């Protein structure tokens, strides 16, 4: 059995097992919902973190998505996939959270939390065989700061479209449903997001590539 076939079969098995857990929850077995929460929390967290850009909000989105999922479980069509469904609830709530956060930040004019996860998450520190020289470290921190700022500068729809398409590999139809938009408009949103990110980041990415070529990076 090849890996692809195994993966398809395991996805089917999870969907079937999810459907049973949903039915049991609806029949009054509250603990059955626990299976669904434990199974899908990581995936929902990843989406929420990429959309909101910070851990605190991401955790709030995850909890709220599962709470809303439970409250609306009666409306969940048995033929659908629970994972996709709760994922969509999370994306919708993350959009609300981003809007709220933007307004709060605009009011407070607080400095951006660039250092929210500290040095341990520096992208370059994850590359084991390259020792972080001071120049390289500075450039990495700067690039990361720029990337976070560029993502934060996207509109909620652009960020959602980019995260769901580029990082999560969602279909355009699925994203369109979350954005309450048409397929063509959604494709356009993906394009606008990438274009804006490119405009904001290309100079930094090129500087880094040049530095690498000149050997100022180890």
């Amino acid at each position, binding site marked *: 059995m090849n890996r692809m076939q195994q993966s398809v079969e395991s996805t089917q098995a999870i969907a079937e097992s999810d459907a049973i857990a949903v039915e049991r929850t*609806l029949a009054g077995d*509250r603990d059955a919902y626990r299976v669904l929460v434990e199974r899908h929390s990581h995936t929902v967290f990843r989406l929420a973190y990429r959309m909101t850009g910070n851990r605190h909000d991401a955790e709030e989105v*995850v909890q709220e998505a599962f709470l809303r999922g439970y409250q609306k479980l009666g409306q969940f069509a048995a033929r659908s996939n629970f994972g996709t469904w709760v994922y969509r609830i999370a994306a919708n709530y993350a959009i609300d959270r981003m809007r709220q956060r933007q307004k709060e930040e605009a009011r407070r004019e607080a400095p951006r939390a660039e250092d929210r996860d500290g040095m341990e998450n520096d992208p370059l520190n994850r590359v084991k065989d390259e020792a972080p020289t001071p120049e390289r470290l500075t450039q990495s921190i700067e690039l990361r700061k720029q990337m976070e700022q560029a993502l934060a500068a996207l509109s909620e729809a652009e960020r959602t479209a980019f995260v769901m398409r580029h990082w999560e590999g969602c279909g355009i139809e699925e994203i369109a449903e979350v954005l309450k938009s048409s397929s063509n408009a959604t494709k356009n949103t993906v394009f606008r997001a990438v274009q804006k990110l490119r405009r904001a*980041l290309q100079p930094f990415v090129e500087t880094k590539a040049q530095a690498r070529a000149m050997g100022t990076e180890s």
Partner: protein
Amino acid sequence: MKHMTEEELIAFREGVAEQRAVISEHLAACEACRGELKRIQAVLAALDTLPVPDPGADYGRRVWREIAPRLAEKPVRWWQVWMQPRRLAAAGAVVALIIVAFVAGRITKRGNTGDNVANKEQVRERVLVVAVGEHLGHSERMLVELSNAAPNNPAQKEINISAEQRRAEDLLEENRLYRQTALQEGDAGLASVLDELERVLLDVAHSPEEVTPVQLEAIQKKIEGRGILFKVRVVNKGLQQRQEATKPAPAQNESTKRERNKV
């Protein structure tokens, strides 16, 4: 040679291009477009290095621990949602409105033939005006309460707005029906205010049950920023005037007629 646009290259890179084969063929032959695609890819590759923190192997269990005490004993099925008393009340109010409008139409039909159509329209408008006026009054009260909500003490971290949320949910259903009716009746001004009100109600209905003072302030700013309370008051006032204007003239009883005949 005509080069690919940035849009086509991004669509190609993100797997949403419609003419994938055509772009692919062009890229094989065009160095400039390959270079452009490489630059796009370099930016995306840099973004891919942004890490997502690992919430830990026991994260699912932690989420369950957090939400379990907030879950009801049993989730409701879709048809049970419509059987909840508050939903039944909202649906009942709308059904009553339709019946009243229908009966009013029938009664005026039987009346004097000359003003028949005009009367029917008048009664229908009057029913809508009264019902919408009442709905706006309820919405205004809920929004005023929410605008005035505040933590009981400075140390309070969360404020419960679940009561306002439930009211907003109920009002939302009514609001949709009234907005559609206003549109059908050609009352664009009323439909527009109801549309704005719907957005605010939607925001309130979708807020968390427990909000932090900062979140509450954000909701209050949103209500204030849209000036919805003012608009609701103005429209309601206008509706009251319309209500007065559409009030039927007092019926002429026999003695009045006799008095007039004497002259």
